[in-house]
């Protein structure tokens, strides 16, 4: 359903919206942002723990648990640019370009999946595990929690894609779902930027 939306479709979309309790559209976005503000504080807790241990240990990270830098840097690039890609998707649906939205959301899913695979690959090649020492405790816990959030983000985007198989589900008038998936994806991205700076980049400063 490309092109200008006719009044019948608009009415139908509206009628659908009311039925599914979508008279609170903007509220759902607001609710999600409020929730994510709270969620961020949980990561802040983990970051604080990491920083405390970094400050109180002479050697951080210890010799046997150095972090890999190249792969995570590539991963960062992928995740950060995927935030831009998903934004193209919501921009498309706001112009009623459903195919465009599906395309960009699909690419985002692929990029997110590459990120996760890269993360797992990194885990498998590090040569140390969760229990090795205090640094590896922090490392795996924090990146693992972030990875879980990336996974949830992927599920949300796939959910949007699944719902968008019905041509009239999302339109320029009803796009809260894609918008929320996008906001969540940005959240995952922002958390990663902080995480990457703390756990990876800070190791460059001795």
């Amino acid at each position: 359903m490309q092109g200008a939306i006719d009044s019948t479709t608009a009415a139908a979309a509206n009628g659908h919206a009311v039925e599914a309790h979508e008279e609170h559209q903007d509220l759902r976005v607001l609710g999600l942002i409020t929730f994510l503000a709270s969620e961020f504080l949980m990561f802040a807790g983990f970051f604080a723990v990491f920083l405390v241990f970094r400050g109180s240990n002479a050697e951080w990270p210890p010799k046997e648990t150095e972090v890999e830098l190249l792969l995570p840097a590539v991963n960062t690039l992928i995740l950060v640019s995927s935030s831009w890609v998903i934004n193209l998707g919501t921009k498309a649906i706001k112009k009623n370009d459903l195919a465009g939205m599906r395309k960009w959301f699909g690419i985002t899913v692929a990029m997110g999946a590459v990120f996760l695979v890269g993360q797992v690959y990194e885990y498998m090649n590090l040569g140390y595990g969760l229990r090795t020492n205090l640094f590896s405790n922090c490392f795996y816990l924090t990146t693992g929690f972030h990875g879980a959030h990336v996974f949830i983000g992927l599920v949300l985007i796939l959910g949007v894609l699944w719902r968008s198989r019905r041509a009239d589900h999302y339109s320029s008038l009803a796009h809260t779902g894609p918008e929320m998936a996008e906001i969540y994806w940005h959240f995952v991205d922002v958390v990663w930027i902080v995480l990457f700076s703390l756990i990876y980049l800070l190791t460059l400063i001795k």
Partner: protein
Amino acid sequence: MFKPFNKTRFMAQAEVSIKPTEDQGGHGHPDKWKWYDYFTFNVDHKVIGIQYLVTSFLFYLVGGFMAVLMRTELATPDSDFLSPELYNAFLTNHGTIMIFLWIVPAAIGGFGNFLIPLMIGARDMAFPKLNAIAFWLNPPAGALLAASFFFGGGAQSGWTSYPPLSEITANLPQTLWCLALIMVGTSSILGSVNFLVTIWKMRVPSMKWDQMPLFCWAMVATSILALFATPVLAAAMVLLLFDINFGTSFFKPDAGGNVVVYQHLFWFYSHPAVYLMILPIFGIMSEVIPVHARKPIFGYKAIAYSSLTICLVGLFVWVHHMFTSGTAPWMRIFFTISTLIVAVPTGVKIFSWVATLWGGKIRYTTAMLFAVGLLSMFVFGGLSGVTLGAAPFDIHVHDTYYVVGHFHYVLFGGSVFGIYSGVYHWFPKITGRMLNETLGKVHFVLTFIGTILTFTPMHQLGMQGMPRRVAMYDPQFADLNQLVTVGAYILAVSVIPFYFNVLWSWRSGKEAGPNPWNALTMEWTTDSPPIIENWEVLPVLTHGPYEYGMDKAVQVGPAGEPTEATQV
């Protein structure tokens, strides 16, 4: 304080409800919920509020029962009634249940959910399904705590669960305990998202921020606190879980970990948690006192903003729980000062309530008795809080019964009195029937005497050096401990008239009518109990919430028709 108000109260709005009814092809709700609807995943905020209240009042009995058993043990210096392990499990779960499954869900979940939409003229909360999910996280959390008793005798390291103790005793029960806390924490966060968005966006258009009932302001402050503090507790619980079960060493000093980090994370949540437990109660006070004193609230804005101030300052006081944890001197000074600052906005509230009572036409209803009782108790508990906020004195009485006495004064004399007051005040709205006032007064007198007898001697015991969290103690403390135990038994007896009153009145109490107290806030403009969706036609606000005795206002009489009230 408010603009002069229009004499016609709540005018009908021009537009009527547009929800299609059953015969119009819509899936209309039933007119009334049946009893079994209260046991299901129901999204009506009133049903959820009642679910929260009833569940938490059940947990109150469980936690109270544990307290009675502990006090029986402490009636004699020797450990001769409970095994020490069981005693530890009871003291841990008494604290956990009373905080996370009694006061928090009753005050925030119960009153918050039932009242907020009614007070701001909304038909429901912003996210009804999320609301129901938040409630249904609570019973499983309780079940986990119960299960922890069957799989290893219950967690034993106190409600604070400090490592290393929590990592070397009763691992499986401690794990279940952590999971339970994560669940109630999640519930609390989801609830707070709902409250904030609802109060922010769903007020009737005619209601400005400074015309909201003060309970709503209190819930705004509560929700902000819960949003920012609870996730940090979740982080602490996750780390503790990993330490216990997955071999990490965040809090294991022998492997480079640090136990004080846990204390920081824990108290970053758990100090604000005491404000979570008292701010909604302050809101209840600000509603009950003007209605039963027939006077406008004194200092509306001062009370509203002091809630926000407590919320803000309350985020920066947590280290006062850790004055003896090797805390640096500059931190002791900083956190002593920030702690003492909290007394200022709290004092603003206390003085405002006293000024509201001053010269009022006070009706000594049970709700009012509990509110005034709370005032006296809370002033005392607040003062002992100020003494504890000062690092030198705190170090002297740290981990003694003085601390136990202090926080029971504010949590029992404060929060529990407030919940009682709220129940006596809003029971007519919730059920449509009045509670029996005579039984209520018996309940109040027993509770008041019991509270003083139970918690006052604890201060003395603490000053003399009796440590908390012990099943055996030095015989020199026996006399006062026996006094405390007698007080605890009186408190145990005091709930009997209350529960009987509630159960009996719910079925066969006097019909209440929409507005038995002649109150002016919006929840009293609809039926008791309110219809599903709250109003046929949404009300329009034409006056502030507390304009008692300022003019001859048109009141909605017991039968629903407007009547001239001489003394509003």
